[in-house]
Protein backbone atom coordinates (compact mmCIF):
# COMPACT_ATOMS: atom_id res chain seq x y z
CA UNK A 1 0.00 0.00 0.00
CA UNK A 2 1.38 3.30 -1.00
CA UNK A 3 -0.21 5.37 1.69
CA UNK A 4 1.88 4.16 4.54
CA UNK A 5 0.41 4.88 7.86
CA UNK A 6 2.00 7.31 10.16
CA UNK A 7 1.15 5.64 13.40
CA UNK A 8 3.34 7.82 15.50
CA UNK A 9 1.20 10.84 14.73
CA UNK A 10 1.65 14.01 16.67
CA UNK A 11 1.90 14.05 20.39
CA UNK A 12 -1.58 14.53 21.65
CA UNK A 13 -2.61 16.78 24.42
CA UNK A 14 0.04 19.39 24.01
CA UNK A 15 -0.90 22.30 26.16
CA UNK A 16 -1.65 24.96 23.66
CA UNK A 17 -4.09 24.88 20.84
CA UNK A 18 -2.19 24.14 17.69
CA UNK A 19 -2.95 27.37 16.07
CA UNK A 20 -0.07 28.03 13.81
CA UNK A 21 0.99 31.31 12.33
CA UNK A 22 -1.63 30.89 9.63
CA UNK A 23 -4.36 31.02 12.25
CA UNK A 24 -6.87 28.39 13.19
CA UNK A 25 -8.70 26.33 10.61
CA UNK A 26 -12.04 26.93 12.22
CA UNK A 27 -13.05 29.75 14.52
CA UNK A 28 -16.45 29.94 16.14
CA UNK A 29 -17.55 33.03 17.97
CA UNK A 30 -20.72 33.44 20.00
CA UNK A 31 -22.53 30.88 17.92
CA UNK A 32 -26.20 30.78 18.89
CA UNK A 33 -28.89 28.53 17.51
CA UNK A 34 -32.59 28.86 18.29
CA UNK A 35 -35.20 26.33 17.33
CA UNK A 36 -38.81 27.26 16.99
CA UNK A 37 -40.99 24.72 18.73
CA UNK A 38 -44.34 23.88 17.29
CA UNK A 39 -47.33 23.98 19.54
CA UNK A 40 -48.92 26.69 21.60
CA UNK A 41 -52.58 27.56 21.36
CA UNK A 42 -52.55 29.02 17.87
CA UNK A 43 -49.59 27.06 16.61
CA UNK A 44 -47.43 29.98 17.76
CA UNK A 45 -44.26 28.25 18.85
CA UNK A 46 -41.89 28.96 21.69
CA UNK A 47 -38.20 29.12 20.99
CA UNK A 48 -35.63 26.76 22.33
CA UNK A 49 -32.09 28.06 22.52
CA UNK A 50 -30.13 24.92 21.68
CA UNK A 51 -26.72 26.60 21.48
CA UNK A 52 -25.83 29.66 23.57
CA UNK A 53 -22.98 31.88 22.46
CA UNK A 54 -20.51 29.08 21.88
CA UNK A 55 -16.95 30.06 21.00
CA UNK A 56 -14.20 27.67 20.06
CA UNK A 57 -11.37 27.20 17.63
CA UNK A 58 -9.73 24.26 15.96
CA UNK A 59 -6.16 24.40 14.73
CA UNK A 60 -4.51 22.68 11.82
CA UNK A 61 -4.30 18.89 12.32
CA UNK A 62 -6.02 19.31 15.62
CA UNK A 63 -8.85 17.23 17.05
CA UNK A 64 -11.21 19.12 19.28
CA UNK A 65 -13.42 16.80 21.31
CA UNK A 66 -16.87 18.17 22.05
CA UNK A 67 -18.53 16.25 24.84
CA UNK A 68 -21.80 16.50 26.69
CA UNK A 69 -24.96 14.56 27.37
CA UNK A 70 -27.99 14.37 25.12
CA UNK A 71 -29.62 17.74 24.74
CA UNK A 72 -26.40 19.62 25.50
CA UNK A 73 -26.35 21.13 22.02
CA UNK A 74 -23.08 19.53 20.92
CA UNK A 75 -24.53 18.04 17.78
CA UNK A 76 -26.35 21.24 16.89
CA UNK A 77 -23.11 23.15 17.29
CA UNK A 78 -21.44 20.87 14.76
CA UNK A 79 -24.31 21.17 12.34
CA UNK A 80 -24.50 24.94 12.68
CA UNK A 81 -20.78 25.22 11.97
CA UNK A 82 -21.40 23.54 8.63
CA UNK A 83 -24.65 25.50 8.25
CA UNK A 84 -26.68 22.33 8.09
CA UNK A 85 -28.84 24.21 10.55
CA UNK A 86 -28.86 28.00 10.24
CA UNK A 87 -27.19 29.79 13.15
CA UNK A 88 -29.33 32.47 14.79
CA UNK A 89 -26.34 34.61 15.65
CA UNK A 90 -22.58 34.51 15.87
CA UNK A 91 -19.82 33.82 13.45
CA UNK A 92 -18.12 30.76 12.02
CA UNK A 93 -14.89 31.23 10.09
CA UNK A 94 -13.18 28.57 8.06
CA UNK A 95 -9.60 29.47 7.14
CA UNK A 96 -10.55 33.04 7.87
CA UNK A 97 -13.57 33.02 5.57
CA UNK A 98 -16.86 33.95 7.19
CA UNK A 99 -19.07 30.90 6.59
CA UNK A 100 -22.13 32.48 8.16
CA UNK A 101 -22.08 35.27 5.58
CA UNK A 102 -21.90 33.05 2.51
CA UNK A 103 -24.70 33.12 -0.03
CA UNK A 104 -26.20 29.94 -1.33
CA UNK A 105 -23.78 29.43 -4.21
CA UNK A 106 -20.64 30.30 -2.25
CA UNK A 107 -21.75 28.10 0.59
CA UNK A 108 -22.05 25.18 -1.79
CA UNK A 109 -18.47 25.80 -2.91
CA UNK A 110 -17.30 26.14 0.67
CA UNK A 111 -18.81 22.76 1.53
CA UNK A 112 -15.92 20.98 -0.11
CA UNK A 113 -13.71 22.26 2.68
CA UNK A 114 -15.94 21.15 5.55
CA UNK A 115 -17.49 17.74 5.80
CA UNK A 116 -19.38 15.60 8.24
CA UNK A 117 -19.47 11.96 9.35
CA UNK A 118 -22.77 11.01 10.89
CA UNK A 119 -23.66 8.73 13.76
CA UNK A 120 -25.98 6.20 12.19
CA UNK A 121 -24.10 4.09 9.67
CA UNK A 122 -27.36 2.46 8.64
CA UNK A 123 -29.13 5.54 7.35
CA UNK A 124 -26.21 7.66 6.16
CA UNK A 125 -25.90 5.87 2.82
CA UNK A 126 -28.66 5.97 0.22
CA UNK A 127 -30.04 2.42 0.11
CA UNK A 128 -31.08 2.85 -3.52
CA UNK A 129 -27.54 3.55 -4.74
CA UNK A 130 -24.47 1.42 -5.05
CA UNK A 131 -21.89 2.73 -2.61
CA UNK A 132 -19.59 3.90 -5.39
CA UNK A 133 -22.32 6.35 -6.40
CA UNK A 134 -22.64 7.69 -2.87
CA UNK A 135 -18.90 8.07 -2.43
CA UNK A 136 -18.53 9.67 -5.84
CA UNK A 137 -21.34 12.16 -5.32
CA UNK A 138 -19.09 14.92 -3.91
CA UNK A 139 -16.92 14.52 -7.02
CA UNK A 140 -19.96 14.80 -9.28
CA UNK A 141 -21.10 17.94 -7.56
CA UNK A 142 -17.78 19.73 -7.32
CA UNK A 143 -15.55 18.39 -10.03
CA UNK A 144 -16.22 17.32 -13.56
CA UNK A 145 -14.35 14.10 -14.05
CA UNK A 146 -14.34 11.59 -16.82
CA UNK A 147 -15.91 8.28 -16.07
CA UNK A 148 -12.53 6.62 -15.77
CA UNK A 149 -11.08 9.32 -13.52
CA UNK A 150 -14.10 9.20 -11.32
CA UNK A 151 -14.03 5.46 -10.88
CA UNK A 152 -10.30 5.60 -10.19
CA UNK A 153 -10.83 8.23 -7.51
CA UNK A 154 -13.65 6.23 -5.93
CA UNK A 155 -11.52 3.10 -5.93
CA UNK A 156 -8.67 5.03 -4.37
CA UNK A 157 -10.97 6.38 -1.66
CA UNK A 158 -12.25 2.88 -0.88
CA UNK A 159 -8.71 1.60 -0.51
CA UNK A 160 -7.85 4.55 1.69
CA UNK A 161 -10.50 3.60 4.20
CA UNK A 162 -9.49 -0.05 4.12
CA UNK A 163 -12.03 -1.45 1.71
CA UNK A 164 -11.55 -3.08 -1.64
CA UNK A 165 -12.05 -0.95 -4.73
CA UNK A 166 -14.23 -3.72 -6.09
CA UNK A 167 -16.89 -2.94 -3.49
CA UNK A 168 -17.98 0.17 -5.39
CA UNK A 169 -20.74 -1.73 -7.15
CA UNK A 170 -22.33 -3.10 -3.99
CA UNK A 171 -25.37 -1.82 -2.16
CA UNK A 172 -25.16 -0.50 1.41
CA UNK A 173 -27.16 -3.34 2.92
CA UNK A 174 -24.36 -5.73 2.04
CA UNK A 175 -22.02 -4.01 4.49
CA UNK A 176 -21.63 -4.23 8.25
CA UNK A 177 -21.94 -1.19 10.50
CA UNK A 178 -18.21 -0.64 10.71
CA UNK A 179 -17.79 -1.00 6.96
CA UNK A 180 -20.58 1.49 6.37
CA UNK A 181 -18.87 3.98 8.62
CA UNK A 182 -15.73 3.54 6.53
CA UNK A 183 -17.80 4.26 3.43
CA UNK A 184 -19.22 7.40 5.04
CA UNK A 185 -15.69 8.53 5.88
CA UNK A 186 -14.59 7.89 2.31
CA UNK A 187 -17.36 10.15 1.07
CA UNK A 188 -16.46 12.83 3.59
CA UNK A 189 -12.78 12.96 2.59
CA UNK A 190 -13.41 12.71 -1.14
CA UNK A 191 -12.76 16.42 -1.67
CA UNK A 192 -9.87 16.70 0.82
CA UNK A 193 -11.73 18.93 3.26
CA UNK A 194 -9.98 21.04 5.86
CA UNK A 195 -12.44 20.31 8.64
CA UNK A 196 -14.26 17.09 9.36
CA UNK A 197 -17.09 17.11 11.88
CA UNK A 198 -17.51 13.62 13.33
CA UNK A 199 -20.91 13.48 15.02
CA UNK A 200 -20.91 10.45 17.33
CA UNK A 201 -19.17 8.68 14.48
CA UNK A 202 -18.31 5.56 16.50
CA UNK A 203 -21.11 5.41 19.08
CA UNK A 204 -23.17 2.84 17.21
CA UNK A 205 -20.30 0.38 16.85
CA UNK A 206 -18.91 -2.48 18.93
CA UNK A 207 -15.66 -1.81 20.77
CA UNK A 208 -13.41 -3.68 18.37
CA UNK A 209 -14.94 -2.02 15.32
CA UNK A 210 -14.99 1.34 17.05
CA UNK A 211 -11.26 1.19 17.56
CA UNK A 212 -10.65 0.35 13.92
CA UNK A 213 -12.54 3.49 12.92
CA UNK A 214 -10.72 5.64 15.48
CA UNK A 215 -7.38 4.41 14.21
CA UNK A 216 -8.49 5.10 10.67
CA UNK A 217 -9.45 8.67 11.59
CA UNK A 218 -6.02 9.21 13.16
CA UNK A 219 -4.28 7.89 10.08
CA UNK A 220 -6.28 10.09 7.77
CA UNK A 221 -5.56 13.10 9.93
CA UNK A 222 -1.84 12.46 9.66
CA UNK A 223 -2.04 11.82 5.95
CA UNK A 224 -4.30 14.67 4.84
CA UNK A 225 -3.68 17.19 7.59
CA UNK A 226 -7.32 17.15 8.59
CA UNK A 227 -8.80 18.99 11.52
CA UNK A 228 -11.54 17.26 13.45
CA UNK A 229 -14.43 18.40 15.55
CA UNK A 230 -15.07 15.11 17.33
CA UNK A 231 -18.51 15.13 18.92
CA UNK A 232 -19.08 12.28 21.36
CA UNK A 233 -20.64 11.33 24.64
CA UNK A 234 -18.08 8.60 25.32
CA UNK A 235 -15.37 10.29 27.35
CA UNK A 236 -12.87 7.45 27.07
CA UNK A 237 -12.97 7.67 23.31
CA UNK A 238 -12.49 11.42 23.43
CA UNK A 239 -9.58 11.05 25.78
CA UNK A 240 -7.92 8.87 23.21
CA UNK A 241 -8.50 10.87 20.07
CA UNK A 242 -8.78 14.53 21.06
CA UNK A 243 -5.99 17.04 21.56
CA UNK A 244 -8.27 19.47 23.30
CA UNK A 245 -11.75 19.03 24.74
CA UNK A 246 -14.73 21.31 25.19
CA UNK A 247 -17.52 20.28 27.57
CA UNK A 248 -21.06 21.41 26.88
CA UNK A 249 -23.99 21.61 29.25
CA UNK A 250 -27.41 22.93 28.27
CA UNK A 251 -26.16 24.72 25.17
CA UNK A 252 -23.12 26.32 26.77
CA UNK A 253 -19.46 25.44 26.84
CA UNK A 254 -18.65 25.10 30.54
CA UNK A 255 -15.03 24.09 30.21
CA UNK A 256 -12.31 23.79 27.60
CA UNK A 257 -8.87 22.35 28.17
CA UNK A 258 -6.06 20.35 26.70
CA UNK A 259 -7.08 16.71 26.97
CA UNK A 260 -4.72 15.64 29.74
CA UNK A 261 -5.56 18.61 31.94
CA UNK A 262 -9.27 18.07 31.50
CA UNK A 263 -9.15 14.42 32.44
CA UNK A 264 -6.56 14.71 35.18
CA UNK A 265 -7.68 17.95 36.80
CA UNK A 266 -11.20 18.88 35.75
CA UNK A 267 -12.03 22.43 36.77
CA UNK A 268 -15.80 22.48 36.37
CA UNK A 269 -17.98 20.48 38.80
CA UNK A 270 -19.96 19.14 35.84
CA UNK A 271 -16.83 17.84 34.11
CA UNK A 272 -15.77 16.28 37.38
CA UNK A 273 -19.14 14.57 37.78
CA UNK A 274 -19.16 13.36 34.17
CA UNK A 275 -15.72 11.80 34.57
CA UNK A 276 -16.61 10.17 37.84
CA UNK A 277 -19.80 8.71 36.35
CA UNK A 278 -17.91 6.68 33.76
CA UNK A 279 -17.14 3.30 35.31
CA UNK A 280 -13.58 2.17 34.69
CA UNK A 281 -13.06 -1.36 33.41
CA UNK A 282 -11.23 -2.54 36.47
CA UNK A 283 -13.28 -3.70 39.47
CA UNK A 284 -10.72 -2.87 42.15
CA UNK A 285 -10.11 0.62 40.86
CA UNK A 286 -13.80 1.16 40.28
CA UNK A 287 -14.57 0.18 43.89
CA UNK A 288 -11.95 2.56 45.22
CA UNK A 289 -13.01 5.51 43.10
CA UNK A 290 -14.89 8.31 44.65
CA UNK A 291 -18.12 8.63 42.71
CA UNK A 292 -20.16 11.76 42.34
CA UNK A 293 -23.70 10.90 41.40
CA UNK A 294 -25.50 14.00 40.19
CA UNK A 295 -29.07 14.34 41.35
CA UNK A 296 -31.89 15.02 38.96
CA UNK A 297 -31.70 15.36 35.25
CA UNK A 298 -30.74 17.94 32.67
CA UNK A 299 -33.32 20.76 32.89
CA UNK A 300 -35.63 21.55 29.99
CA UNK A 301 -33.66 23.52 27.44
CA UNK A 302 -36.75 25.55 26.54
CA UNK A 303 -36.87 26.78 30.12
CA UNK A 304 -33.31 26.87 31.48
CA UNK A 305 -32.55 27.78 35.10
CA UNK A 306 -31.51 31.32 35.95
CA UNK A 307 -27.92 32.03 36.91
CA UNK A 308 -25.55 29.16 36.25
CA UNK A 309 -27.37 26.58 34.13
CA UNK A 310 -25.80 23.78 36.17
CA UNK A 311 -26.77 25.07 39.61
CA UNK A 312 -29.82 22.77 39.92
CA UNK A 313 -27.55 19.71 39.98
CA UNK A 314 -24.26 21.10 41.20
CA UNK A 315 -22.82 19.56 44.39
CA UNK A 316 -20.98 22.83 45.13
CA UNK A 317 -23.85 25.19 44.49
CA UNK A 318 -23.56 28.60 46.17
CA UNK A 319 -26.08 31.41 46.49
CA UNK A 320 -24.48 33.44 43.75
CA UNK A 321 -24.90 30.54 41.28
CA UNK A 322 -28.68 30.82 41.47
CA UNK A 323 -28.80 34.42 40.37
CA UNK A 324 -25.72 35.24 38.40
CA UNK A 325 -24.36 33.47 35.36
CA UNK A 326 -20.63 32.84 35.86
CA UNK A 327 -18.17 34.43 33.43
CA UNK A 328 -15.65 32.47 31.40
CA UNK A 329 -12.27 32.59 33.12
CA UNK A 330 -8.89 30.99 32.57
CA UNK A 331 -8.67 27.65 34.34
CA UNK A 332 -5.67 26.58 36.39
CA UNK A 333 -3.47 24.42 34.22
CA UNK A 334 -4.83 25.75 30.93
CA UNK A 335 -8.07 26.22 29.12
CA UNK A 336 -11.15 28.01 30.31
CA UNK A 337 -13.94 27.35 32.77
CA UNK A 338 -17.34 28.90 33.39
CA UNK A 339 -17.87 28.52 37.14
CA UNK A 340 -18.14 30.77 40.20
CA UNK A 341 -15.75 28.48 42.09
CA UNK A 342 -12.99 29.93 39.95
CA UNK A 343 -13.91 33.61 40.09
Amino acid at each position, binding site marked *: *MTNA*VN*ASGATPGSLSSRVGAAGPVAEVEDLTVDFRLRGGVLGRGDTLRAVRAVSLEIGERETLGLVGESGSGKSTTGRAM*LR*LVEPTAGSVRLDGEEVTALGRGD*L*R*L*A*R*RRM*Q*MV*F*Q*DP*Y*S*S*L*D*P*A*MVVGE*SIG*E*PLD*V*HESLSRAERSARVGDLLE*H*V*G*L*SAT*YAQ*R*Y*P*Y*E*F*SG*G*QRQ*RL*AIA*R*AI*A*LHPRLLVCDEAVSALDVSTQN*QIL*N*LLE*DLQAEFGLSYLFIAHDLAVVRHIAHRVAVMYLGEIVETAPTDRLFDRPAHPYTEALLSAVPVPNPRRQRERERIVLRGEVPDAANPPAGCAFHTRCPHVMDVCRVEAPPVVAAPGGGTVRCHLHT
Partner: protein
Amino acid sequence: MTATAIDRREALAPPEPGARARFVRRFRRQRLALAALVYLVLVVLATVLAPLLATHDPLAQNLGSVLQQPGGGHVLGTDDLGRDVFSRALYAGRVSLVAAAQAVGVAVVLGVIPGLVAGYAGRKVDAVIMRLTDALMSFPPLILAIAFVGVLGPSLTNAMFVIGVIFAPRFVRLVRGTVLSIREETFVEASRSIGTPTPRVIVRHVLPNALSPLIVQVSLTAAMAMLAEASLSFLGLGVQPPDASWGSMIERGFRYTATAPWLTVFPGLLIALTVLAFNVLGDGLRDSLGREIRRGS
Protein backbone atom coordinates in the same frame (compact mmCIF):
# COMPACT_ATOMS: atom_id res chain seq x y z
CA MET B 1 -1.88 -9.99 20.12
CA THR B 2 -4.40 -7.36 19.35
CA ALA B 3 -2.10 -4.39 19.39
CA THR B 4 -0.65 -5.41 16.07
CA ALA B 5 0.58 -2.76 13.73
CA ILE B 6 -2.44 -1.42 12.00
CA ASP B 7 -3.43 -3.05 8.85
CA ARG B 8 -5.87 -0.85 7.12
CA ARG B 9 -7.28 -3.86 5.45
CA GLU B 10 -8.56 -5.28 8.69
CA ALA B 11 -12.04 -4.39 7.53
CA LEU B 12 -11.67 -6.33 4.35
CA ALA B 13 -13.93 -9.08 5.50
CA PRO B 14 -16.27 -9.71 2.58
CA PRO B 15 -19.59 -7.94 2.73
CA GLU B 16 -22.27 -9.61 4.78
CA PRO B 17 -23.24 -12.85 3.07
CA GLY B 18 -26.73 -13.77 2.17
CA ALA B 19 -27.59 -10.78 0.02
CA ARG B 20 -28.28 -13.06 -2.88
CA ALA B 21 -30.03 -15.60 -0.73
CA ARG B 22 -32.28 -12.86 0.54
CA PHE B 23 -33.13 -11.76 -2.97
CA VAL B 24 -33.92 -15.31 -4.04
CA ARG B 25 -36.08 -15.86 -0.98
CA ARG B 26 -37.99 -12.68 -1.59
CA PHE B 27 -38.45 -13.54 -5.21
CA ARG B 28 -39.75 -16.96 -4.33
CA ARG B 29 -42.19 -15.58 -1.82
CA GLN B 30 -43.67 -13.41 -4.55
CA ARG B 31 -44.86 -16.33 -6.63
CA LEU B 32 -48.40 -15.05 -6.38
CA ALA B 33 -47.39 -11.59 -7.55
CA LEU B 34 -45.52 -13.16 -10.42
CA ALA B 35 -48.61 -15.12 -11.41
CA ALA B 36 -50.62 -11.89 -11.24
CA LEU B 37 -48.11 -10.19 -13.50
CA VAL B 38 -48.26 -13.03 -16.01
CA TYR B 39 -52.06 -12.90 -15.95
CA LEU B 40 -52.07 -9.14 -16.54
CA VAL B 41 -49.66 -9.45 -19.43
CA LEU B 42 -51.90 -12.12 -20.95
CA VAL B 43 -55.01 -9.96 -20.53
CA VAL B 44 -53.31 -6.98 -22.10
CA LEU B 45 -52.06 -9.13 -24.98
CA ALA B 46 -55.49 -10.64 -25.46
CA THR B 47 -57.16 -7.25 -25.67
CA VAL B 48 -54.48 -5.85 -27.96
CA LEU B 49 -54.80 -8.86 -30.21
CA ALA B 50 -58.58 -8.81 -29.97
CA PRO B 51 -59.05 -8.56 -33.75
CA LEU B 52 -57.06 -11.77 -34.17
CA LEU B 53 -58.59 -13.66 -31.28
CA ALA B 54 -62.22 -12.63 -31.64
CA THR B 55 -64.34 -15.38 -33.09
CA HIS B 56 -67.10 -13.00 -34.12
CA ASP B 57 -67.63 -9.34 -34.89
CA PRO B 58 -68.29 -7.91 -31.42
CA LEU B 59 -70.97 -5.57 -32.76
CA ALA B 60 -72.69 -7.97 -35.15
CA GLN B 61 -76.22 -8.63 -33.99
CA ASN B 62 -77.90 -11.87 -34.73
CA LEU B 63 -81.47 -11.81 -33.59
CA GLY B 64 -81.77 -15.43 -34.63
CA SER B 65 -79.51 -16.61 -31.85
CA VAL B 66 -80.11 -14.44 -28.80
CA LEU B 67 -79.25 -15.47 -25.24
CA GLN B 68 -77.53 -18.66 -26.28
CA GLN B 69 -75.84 -20.62 -23.54
CA PRO B 70 -72.06 -20.95 -23.55
CA GLY B 71 -70.73 -23.71 -25.73
CA GLY B 72 -71.40 -24.56 -29.28
CA GLY B 73 -70.55 -21.81 -31.71
CA HIS B 74 -70.21 -19.21 -28.96
CA VAL B 75 -67.66 -20.03 -26.27
CA LEU B 76 -69.26 -17.73 -23.72
CA GLY B 77 -72.74 -17.62 -25.22
CA THR B 78 -74.57 -14.68 -26.77
CA ASP B 79 -76.33 -11.65 -25.36
CA ASP B 80 -79.85 -10.32 -25.83
CA LEU B 81 -78.97 -9.03 -29.30
CA GLY B 82 -77.28 -12.24 -30.30
CA ARG B 83 -73.78 -10.78 -30.07
CA ASP B 84 -70.91 -13.10 -29.19
CA VAL B 85 -70.03 -12.56 -25.51
CA PHE B 86 -66.44 -13.80 -25.84
CA SER B 87 -65.62 -11.42 -28.68
CA ARG B 88 -67.33 -8.55 -26.93
CA ALA B 89 -65.43 -9.29 -23.73
CA LEU B 90 -62.11 -9.02 -25.60
CA TYR B 91 -62.92 -5.59 -26.95
CA ALA B 92 -64.58 -4.51 -23.71
CA GLY B 93 -61.40 -5.44 -21.86
CA ARG B 94 -59.54 -2.98 -24.03
CA VAL B 95 -61.95 -0.24 -23.00
CA SER B 96 -61.70 -1.15 -19.33
CA LEU B 97 -57.90 -1.27 -19.30
CA VAL B 98 -57.45 1.94 -21.25
CA ALA B 99 -59.93 3.66 -18.95
CA ALA B 100 -58.03 2.47 -15.87
CA ALA B 101 -54.72 3.57 -17.37
CA GLN B 102 -56.17 6.97 -18.14
CA ALA B 103 -57.42 7.47 -14.60
CA VAL B 104 -54.13 6.33 -13.10
CA GLY B 105 -52.23 8.63 -15.44
CA VAL B 106 -54.32 11.62 -14.41
CA ALA B 107 -53.94 10.71 -10.73
CA VAL B 108 -50.16 10.36 -11.00
CA VAL B 109 -49.71 13.61 -12.89
CA LEU B 110 -51.98 15.54 -10.56
CA GLY B 111 -50.63 13.83 -7.47
CA VAL B 112 -46.89 13.46 -7.72
CA ILE B 113 -45.89 17.04 -8.40
CA PRO B 114 -48.01 18.65 -5.68
CA GLY B 115 -46.86 15.87 -3.36
CA LEU B 116 -43.21 16.60 -4.08
CA VAL B 117 -43.79 20.33 -3.66
CA ALA B 118 -45.72 19.88 -0.43
CA GLY B 119 -43.07 17.59 0.97
CA TYR B 120 -40.15 19.73 0.01
CA ALA B 121 -41.42 23.30 0.20
CA GLY B 122 -42.05 25.18 3.39
CA ARG B 123 -44.89 24.99 5.82
CA LYS B 124 -47.23 27.42 4.07
CA VAL B 125 -47.23 25.85 0.63
CA ASP B 126 -47.54 22.48 2.29
CA ALA B 127 -50.50 23.64 4.35
CA VAL B 128 -52.35 24.99 1.31
CA ILE B 129 -51.81 21.84 -0.73
CA MET B 130 -52.81 19.60 2.13
CA ARG B 131 -56.00 21.56 2.90
CA LEU B 132 -57.01 21.26 -0.76
CA THR B 133 -56.27 17.57 -0.62
CA ASP B 134 -58.33 17.19 2.54
CA ALA B 135 -61.22 18.98 0.87
CA LEU B 136 -61.06 16.71 -2.14
CA MET B 137 -60.91 13.70 0.14
CA SER B 138 -64.03 14.83 1.97
CA PHE B 139 -66.13 13.82 -1.01
CA PRO B 140 -67.15 10.20 -1.26
CA PRO B 141 -65.31 9.22 -4.45
CA LEU B 142 -68.10 7.59 -6.39
CA ILE B 143 -70.64 10.26 -5.47
CA LEU B 144 -68.32 12.99 -6.67
CA ALA B 145 -67.67 11.08 -9.87
CA ILE B 146 -71.38 10.64 -10.47
CA ALA B 147 -71.98 14.33 -9.81
CA PHE B 148 -69.30 15.40 -12.24
CA VAL B 149 -70.44 13.04 -14.91
CA GLY B 150 -73.97 14.27 -14.30
CA VAL B 151 -72.86 17.83 -14.90
CA LEU B 152 -70.41 17.22 -17.73
CA GLY B 153 -72.54 14.61 -19.45
CA PRO B 154 -71.95 10.87 -19.48
CA SER B 155 -68.82 9.80 -21.31
CA LEU B 156 -66.08 7.41 -20.40
CA THR B 157 -63.35 10.00 -20.89
CA ASN B 158 -65.08 12.44 -18.55
CA ALA B 159 -65.69 9.71 -16.04
CA MET B 160 -62.11 8.51 -15.97
CA PHE B 161 -60.73 12.03 -15.80
CA VAL B 162 -62.85 12.62 -12.75
CA ILE B 163 -61.81 9.30 -11.23
CA GLY B 164 -58.21 10.32 -11.79
CA VAL B 165 -58.78 13.63 -10.03
CA ILE B 166 -60.43 11.84 -7.15
CA PHE B 167 -57.53 9.43 -6.73
CA ALA B 168 -54.89 12.15 -7.03
CA PRO B 169 -54.93 13.01 -3.29
CA ARG B 170 -53.73 9.52 -2.51
CA PHE B 171 -50.64 10.20 -4.54
CA VAL B 172 -50.22 13.65 -3.03
CA ARG B 173 -50.30 12.19 0.45
CA LEU B 174 -48.12 9.23 -0.41
CA VAL B 175 -45.44 11.27 -2.15
CA ARG B 176 -45.50 13.98 0.51
CA GLY B 177 -45.23 11.44 3.31
CA THR B 178 -42.41 9.61 1.60
CA VAL B 179 -40.56 12.82 0.86
CA LEU B 180 -40.94 14.00 4.44
CA SER B 181 -39.54 10.77 5.80
CA ILE B 182 -36.75 10.52 3.26
CA ARG B 183 -35.81 14.13 3.99
CA GLU B 184 -35.20 13.11 7.57
CA GLU B 185 -32.84 10.32 6.52
CA THR B 186 -29.21 10.97 7.24
CA PHE B 187 -28.20 10.20 3.69
CA VAL B 188 -30.12 13.24 2.47
CA GLU B 189 -28.46 15.44 5.07
CA ALA B 190 -25.15 13.89 4.08
CA SER B 191 -25.80 14.76 0.47
CA ARG B 192 -26.73 18.32 1.39
CA SER B 193 -23.61 18.57 3.51
CA ILE B 194 -21.38 17.95 0.52
CA GLY B 195 -23.10 20.80 -1.29
CA THR B 196 -25.44 18.89 -3.56
CA PRO B 197 -27.97 21.32 -5.05
CA THR B 198 -31.57 20.71 -4.00
CA PRO B 199 -32.86 19.65 -7.44
CA ARG B 200 -30.15 17.06 -7.64
CA VAL B 201 -30.97 15.83 -4.12
CA ILE B 202 -34.56 15.39 -5.21
CA VAL B 203 -33.74 13.62 -8.45
CA ARG B 204 -30.91 11.45 -7.17
CA HIS B 205 -32.04 10.59 -3.65
CA VAL B 206 -35.64 11.48 -2.96
CA LEU B 207 -37.32 10.29 -6.14
CA PRO B 208 -35.59 6.90 -6.45
CA ASN B 209 -36.43 6.12 -2.85
CA ALA B 210 -40.00 7.34 -3.31
CA LEU B 211 -40.36 5.25 -6.44
CA SER B 212 -41.07 1.91 -4.83
CA PRO B 213 -44.10 3.07 -2.83
CA LEU B 214 -45.22 4.97 -5.91
CA ILE B 215 -45.14 1.89 -8.12
CA VAL B 216 -47.05 -0.02 -5.48
CA GLN B 217 -49.66 2.71 -5.32
CA VAL B 218 -49.98 2.78 -9.11
CA SER B 219 -50.81 -0.89 -9.11
CA LEU B 220 -53.34 -0.57 -6.29
CA THR B 221 -54.89 2.51 -7.89
CA ALA B 222 -55.23 0.71 -11.19
CA ALA B 223 -57.32 -1.85 -9.32
CA MET B 224 -59.52 0.83 -7.82
CA ALA B 225 -59.84 2.66 -11.13
CA MET B 226 -61.01 -0.54 -12.84
CA LEU B 227 -63.65 -1.01 -10.17
CA ALA B 228 -64.71 2.63 -10.45
CA GLU B 229 -64.98 2.38 -14.22
CA ALA B 230 -67.02 -0.78 -13.91
CA SER B 231 -69.31 0.88 -11.39
CA LEU B 232 -69.88 3.98 -13.48
CA SER B 233 -70.46 1.94 -16.60
CA PHE B 234 -72.82 -0.29 -14.66
CA LEU B 235 -74.79 2.84 -13.75
CA GLY B 236 -74.83 3.84 -17.41
CA LEU B 237 -72.61 6.85 -16.74
CA GLY B 238 -69.44 5.51 -18.27
CA VAL B 239 -68.96 3.90 -21.63
CA GLN B 240 -71.83 4.55 -24.05
CA PRO B 241 -73.36 1.94 -26.39
CA PRO B 242 -72.59 0.38 -28.75
CA ASP B 243 -69.12 0.34 -27.16
CA ALA B 244 -68.88 -1.84 -24.12
CA SER B 245 -66.69 -2.28 -21.10
CA TRP B 246 -66.88 -5.22 -18.74
CA GLY B 247 -68.98 -3.07 -16.40
CA SER B 248 -71.49 -2.12 -19.04
CA MET B 249 -71.74 -5.74 -20.17
CA ILE B 250 -72.86 -6.66 -16.67
CA GLU B 251 -75.33 -3.79 -16.66
CA ARG B 252 -76.86 -5.16 -19.85
CA GLY B 253 -76.83 -8.72 -18.56
CA PHE B 254 -78.37 -7.67 -15.24
CA ARG B 255 -81.82 -7.66 -16.84
CA TYR B 256 -81.46 -11.34 -17.66
CA THR B 257 -80.12 -12.47 -14.32
CA ALA B 258 -82.71 -15.19 -14.00
CA THR B 259 -82.57 -16.47 -17.59
CA ALA B 260 -79.01 -15.83 -18.79
CA PRO B 261 -76.68 -15.68 -15.78
CA TRP B 262 -73.57 -16.09 -18.00
CA LEU B 263 -74.05 -12.52 -19.20
CA THR B 264 -73.15 -11.23 -15.74
CA VAL B 265 -70.95 -14.01 -14.45
CA PHE B 266 -68.24 -13.93 -17.12
CA PRO B 267 -67.56 -10.20 -17.36
CA GLY B 268 -67.77 -10.00 -13.57
CA LEU B 269 -65.20 -12.75 -13.26
CA LEU B 270 -62.91 -10.91 -15.66
CA ILE B 271 -63.18 -7.69 -13.68
CA ALA B 272 -62.66 -9.50 -10.39
CA LEU B 273 -59.61 -11.40 -11.64
CA THR B 274 -58.01 -8.39 -13.22
CA VAL B 275 -58.59 -6.20 -10.19
CA LEU B 276 -57.30 -9.00 -7.99
CA ALA B 277 -54.21 -9.26 -10.15
CA PHE B 278 -53.47 -5.55 -9.75
CA ASN B 279 -53.98 -5.81 -6.01
CA VAL B 280 -51.83 -8.91 -5.63
CA LEU B 281 -49.12 -7.39 -7.79
CA GLY B 282 -49.19 -4.20 -5.72
CA ASP B 283 -48.96 -6.13 -2.45
CA GLY B 284 -46.18 -8.30 -3.80
CA LEU B 285 -44.22 -5.27 -4.90
CA ARG B 286 -44.73 -3.64 -1.53
CA ASP B 287 -43.36 -6.70 0.21
CA SER B 288 -40.31 -7.08 -1.97
CA LEU B 289 -39.39 -3.42 -2.46
CA GLY B 290 -38.84 -0.86 0.21
CA ARG B 291 -37.60 -3.27 2.81
CA GLU B 292 -34.03 -2.06 2.70
CA ILE B 293 -34.94 1.42 3.84
CA ARG B 294 -36.47 0.12 7.00
CA ARG B 295 -33.66 -2.27 7.72
CA GLY B 296 -31.39 -1.20 10.51
CA SER B 297 -33.18 2.02 11.26
